[in-house]
């Protein structure tokens, strides 16, 4: 068994004014500005394909990924920019990926849905709903198999809970967890909708986190708009996962302020009013207010963070814009190892 006790997670007291909270606010603001920029660049035609932004949900990834260690690993779906950013991926290279440039994290081959940064423990970035859950469970198994105390975090949406691979992944994680061999945190990013289908319309049982009890996996709901709550839960359960090798599930109740994807303009499935209501619970404003009230963070501090974020994002856009597109031969690399073999009888 790996030694886990000695270097246990450094938790931060949600009530304390640790400098880390300011850092988290900074990152959340950065994510927001970054996502707004991607929407802009999509409209400008600089970004193609599907684009799913994280606006409104920042508290979820921020509260959890900041509680992980450098050597932990993270899997996400296609709404993955924030996860990569929080893992420490260079925003320039994320933006370049969205622009389809050679300097992108995935060499321009993946795009928005397939960000990857293995060096920072970010293992993607997947486009098939629920498809990555089994991968994450296997990764968690591998981490214990190798005798490490690394853990795996796997993000997915409320809608992903209805696909078969969710079920198979959960049961296998539960079984392996019974033997202490599956240190994984499953994070349901419950933003209330799978595209245009609300939770009550896609899940027979709407209390989502209770569904994972069917796999002997414990879980709890957390207010995803309150990053204090998220981080507090994350610190606690990640420590426990690391120690026991057993899976755990957090349902982060959140809301996306933007459309499902850049093409979701009409949003016939929800009213403007509903969105407005939820904007009152903007995770960035909630954190800012608390830091202002309790820890003396000033409006000026926040303005500065915003400014810095804008500058950093502008730099990323510039970097992306100025980067070259992938060379034509890149088409054929990375299909299999060592740039080959291609089909031997391929003509062209």
């Amino acid at each position: 068994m790996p030694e886990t006790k000695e270097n246990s997670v450094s938790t931060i007291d949600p009530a304390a004014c640790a400098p880390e909270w300011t850092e988290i606010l900074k990152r959340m603001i950065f994510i927001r500005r970054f996502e707004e920029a991607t929407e802009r660049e999509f409209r400008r035609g600089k970004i193609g394909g599907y684009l799913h932004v994280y606006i409104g949900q920042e508290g979820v990834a921020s509260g959890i990924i900041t509680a992980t260690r450098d050597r932990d690993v993270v899997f996400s779906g296609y709404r993955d920019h924030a996860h990569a950013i929080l893992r420490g991926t260079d925003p320039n290279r994320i933006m370049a990926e969205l622009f389809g440039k050679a300097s992108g994290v995935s060499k321009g081959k993946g795009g928005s849905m397939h960000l990857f940064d293995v060096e920072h423990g970010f293992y993607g970035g997947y486009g098939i709903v629920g498809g990555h859950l089994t991968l994450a469970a296997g990764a968690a198994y591998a981490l214990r198999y190798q005798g490490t105390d690394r853990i795996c975090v796997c993000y997915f949406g409320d809608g992903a809970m209805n696909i078969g691979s969710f079920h198979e992944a959960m049961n296998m994680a539960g079984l392996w967890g019974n033997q202490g061999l599956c240190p994984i945190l499953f994070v349901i990013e419950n933003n209330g909708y799978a595209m245009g289908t609300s939770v009550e319309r896609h899940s027979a049982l709407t209390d989502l986190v209770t569904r994972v009890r069917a796999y002997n996996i414990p879980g709890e709901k957390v207010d995803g708009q309150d990053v204090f709550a998220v981080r507090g839960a994350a610190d606690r359960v990640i420590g426990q996962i690391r120690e026991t090798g057993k899976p755990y599930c957090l349902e982060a109740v959140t809301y996306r302020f933007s459309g499902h994807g850049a093409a979701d303009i009409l949003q016939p499935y929800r009213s403007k009013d509903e969105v407005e209501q939820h904007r009152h619970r903007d995770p960035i404003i909630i954190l800012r207010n608390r830091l202002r009230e309790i820890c003396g963070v000033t409006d000026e501090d926040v303005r500065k963070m915003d400014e810095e974020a804008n500058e950093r994002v502008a730099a990323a856009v510039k970097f992306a814009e100025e980067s070259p597109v992938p060379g034509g031969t890149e088409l054929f690399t990375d299909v299999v190892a060592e740039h080959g073999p291609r089909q031997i009888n391929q003509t062209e």
Partner: protein
Amino acid sequence: MAEKSYRDAIREAMIEEMDRDPNVLIMGEDIGVYEGTFRITAGMLKKYGSKRVIDTPIAEAGMAGTAVGMAMLGLRPIVEMMTMNFAIVAADQILNHAAKVRYFSGGQVDVPMVIRGPQGAGVQLSAQHSQTFEAFYGHFPGLAVVAPATPADAKGMLKTAVRGKDPVIFLESAALYGMKGEVPEDPDFTVPFGESRVAREGSDVTIVSYGRMLQLSLVAAEKLSKEEGIEAEVIDLRSIRPLDLVPTYASVARTHRAVVVQEQWKPFGAAAEIAASITEEMFDELDAPVARVTGEDVPMPYARNLELLATPHEPQIIGAVRRVMYRE
């Protein structure tokens, strides 16, 4: 006749069939409240209610499998796959259940169901979202697999699919949704499966294709005619299974040369079957080996420039025609 888009042709076929037969229903992800990602089903939930326009959870196997059960009990479900890529998740329900239950029950059940949705590359959706599936499904007996290239065929073939007794894989092309064409008004206008057609006459070379690539082939044929005086006959296969190559054989008997165009990867792709069949049947007539124009043998990359390199375009078709005519 009326000018209609490919999208509206599909939509109208569904509406007319739902009006005609109360056993027809549609199901899929976000086809109701959301009105469909490609808006094919816009307004239909309001018109037919939630019993006949079923918004499903994200559960493609569930959609395909429940449709099989519905069909066995006498309904005629049309399953919309948001894109056909997601139907891979339902492969077992389609290939091992829908396609085979008539057979292993000794013919005790009909399975009148349609699985339809867009496929293909072109808008930077990258590797998991850009595939085409003719060869994938065409291999399996028990299925019908069609890929209409025009609004008229989209409408007429979807009607045939809905009125049939067997599971049909109905492969649309998102890139064609906006394309307009003449569509007969007769509500009983149907286009049978297993009847290919000559889309353009010509005597120098035969180009064989279907779906979006058929349209590309027609453009290439016009260019060839204008720029090089080569008159290509273009065959629209329409159905992949059953596959009708009789008009192709007749054409090759005159042209002695054939080019097959498909979007997907070359190895074990649809063009292999078509080329092999042409060769088997028309060997003595061929003046050159049948050429295949295909996408590159790589997962689809995201970057626009790479995606363009990965997919076939007119120049490749023209190049293949030149090759089989020994004009290089």
